[in-house]
């Protein structure tokens, strides 16, 4: 409704120095830059600095808990990530079915992800209590079996930590892979059906080629995020019995609580050779994707 049409400034030749737009662009980026510098970059540099004393590494390698923690972490990552992603891949096909009850189930299925993790982990912990927990009580009542100490034996403890971790994060990855499957054009499936493809062939030659890239991204991201999962182990077993179920995520905090910050950071820095290739690969993927736009 403006009555006067101003000469369009967009067509004016670019001025030297800061235009009004660029000035505001920089000003508007300052808050995020400040947060990123103060609470991401600085902690990382500070951490590298604290964790750079050789004596910290000597203490770390002399600690017998360190070796078992490395083993636990590798087992945790290999099992948790792969089992979770394969199940998520399968479930995403299940939730693709257009049936009302499956849609309702998918809404309910999300609750594990929607709920905060603390109450459910504590629920698991109490359920698994060897003397008073529901699991052993029912095992005895129904099968007259004396259940083991689910959280007081290393292998069971770690196994349950993996289950709790999968329980919490499965809906998220299923949702991502479901979105990936929804992006596959329907006519591909129709022509596969016309050609008489079996279920396996349809997956192998239609779904998988489209999902492969996304699946790999999910596995890598999930590896990093699972490496940072503190809650599933700490709140379930507390790293015990006798520090036998620690993973790197809880070991660092254990050293921090023992006032050995340098050892805590050393325990993180030793994991870098495993993480940095993933980071490098993910960054390459991200920037490649952007140049395609």
């Amino acid at each position, binding site marked *: 409704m403006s009555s006067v049409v101003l000469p369009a400034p967009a067509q004016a030749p670019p001025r030297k120095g800061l235009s009004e737009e660029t000035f505001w662009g920089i000003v508007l980026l300052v*808050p995020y830059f400040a947060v990123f510098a103060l609470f*991401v970059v600085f902690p990382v540099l500070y951490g590298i600095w604290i964790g750079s004393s050789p004596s910290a590494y000597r203490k770390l390698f002399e600690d017998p808990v360190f070796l078992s923690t490395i083993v636990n972490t590798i087992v945790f990552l290999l099992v948790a990530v792969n089992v979770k992603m394969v199940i998520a891949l399968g479930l995403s096909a299940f939730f693709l079915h257009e049936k009302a009850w499956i849609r309702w189930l998918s809404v309910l*299925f999300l609750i594990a992800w929607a709920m905060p*993790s603390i*109450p459910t982990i504590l629920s698991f912990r109490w359920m698994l209590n060897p003397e008073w927990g529901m699991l052993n009580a029912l095992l005895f009542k129904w099968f007259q079996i004396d259940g083991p100490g689910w959280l007081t034996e290393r292998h069971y403890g770690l196994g349950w930590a993996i289950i709790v971790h999968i329980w919490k994060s499965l809906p998220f990855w299923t949702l991502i892979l479901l979105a990936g499957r929804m992006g596959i054009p329907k006519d591909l499936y129709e022509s596969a059906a016309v050609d008489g493809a079996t279920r396996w062939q349809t997956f192998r030659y239609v779904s998988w080629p489209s999902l492969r890239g*996304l699946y790999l991204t999910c596995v890598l991201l999930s590896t*990093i995020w699972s490496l940072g999962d503190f809650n599933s182990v700490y709140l379930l077993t507390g790293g015990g019995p006798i520090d036998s179920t620690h993973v790197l995520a809880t070991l660092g905090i254990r050293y*921090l609580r023992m006032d050995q*910050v340098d050892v805590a950071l050393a325990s993180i820095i030793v994991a870098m050779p495993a993480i940095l290739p993933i980071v490098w690969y993910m960054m390459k993927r991200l920037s490649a994707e*952007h140049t395609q736009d």
Partner: protein
Amino acid sequence: MKLGRDWPLYLIGIVVFLWTIIPIYHLLIIALSPQQEAVASGLFPRNPTTHNFELVLGAKHNMVQFFWSQLGASVFIAVMVALITLVIGACANFAITRIRIKGGRTITNIALLTYLIPAAFLAIPMYKTMGAYGLVDNPWSLIFAMVALASPYAIWVMNQAATKIPRELDEAAKIDGASTMQIFRYVYLPLMVPTMVAIGTYALLLAWNEYLYAFLMLATENRLTLSVALGNFLAFDDAPWALLMATGVIYALPPTAIYYAFRRYMVSGLTAGAVKS
């Protein structure tokens, strides 16, 4: 019934249902059991009672004596994280997608690098950093930490939403003589409301649900968030589990309700990004 061909679907459905519901069901029945019976474990509570909830809401047990101030701390921190993330995210996003400042893509990518640091690994130097800033045992340390963790996702999702706003709107406003900040206020913000709802909810839940950072950075008992207070129950061998579960239910209800209320917004932002990659 034509169970025949569909039986594998039903089987998977039953497994998925049980898998999802068992820990939550267990949480609820223990919360509804009398203190002494939280140990007598059957599939159903024999004498269901709301006594535990009364104890928690009335702060009438020494384990829950700070319930209301801890709830207040959780609310304050979650709301502040949501607000600050929205402001920071919208400003950065406007600069990147509307002003199209040079290197906007790179800025987004570098921000996303934050998520390639495992959370528990960043927590330790972050804790030391808060000490260096003099923020230990101060709710603002947790607020800033969570803002740093929520902002990259906010910027990323907003970038995708903002590129769908036609540039002609900005051009038209410019021709009408609008300044950059007027475009921000009157063109950009109103169109971004749905995305801002999603991001605000995301940041709110992220902060409310956080355990590790809160556990490290807060110490004074009546200023803890509820998540840390719940974890602290475990310090006692004879923890009153029924009370713990009741507190857990109360703590879990608001975020779950909010999540389901805004589910559509939340899921679409997330999956839009997933399909692209």
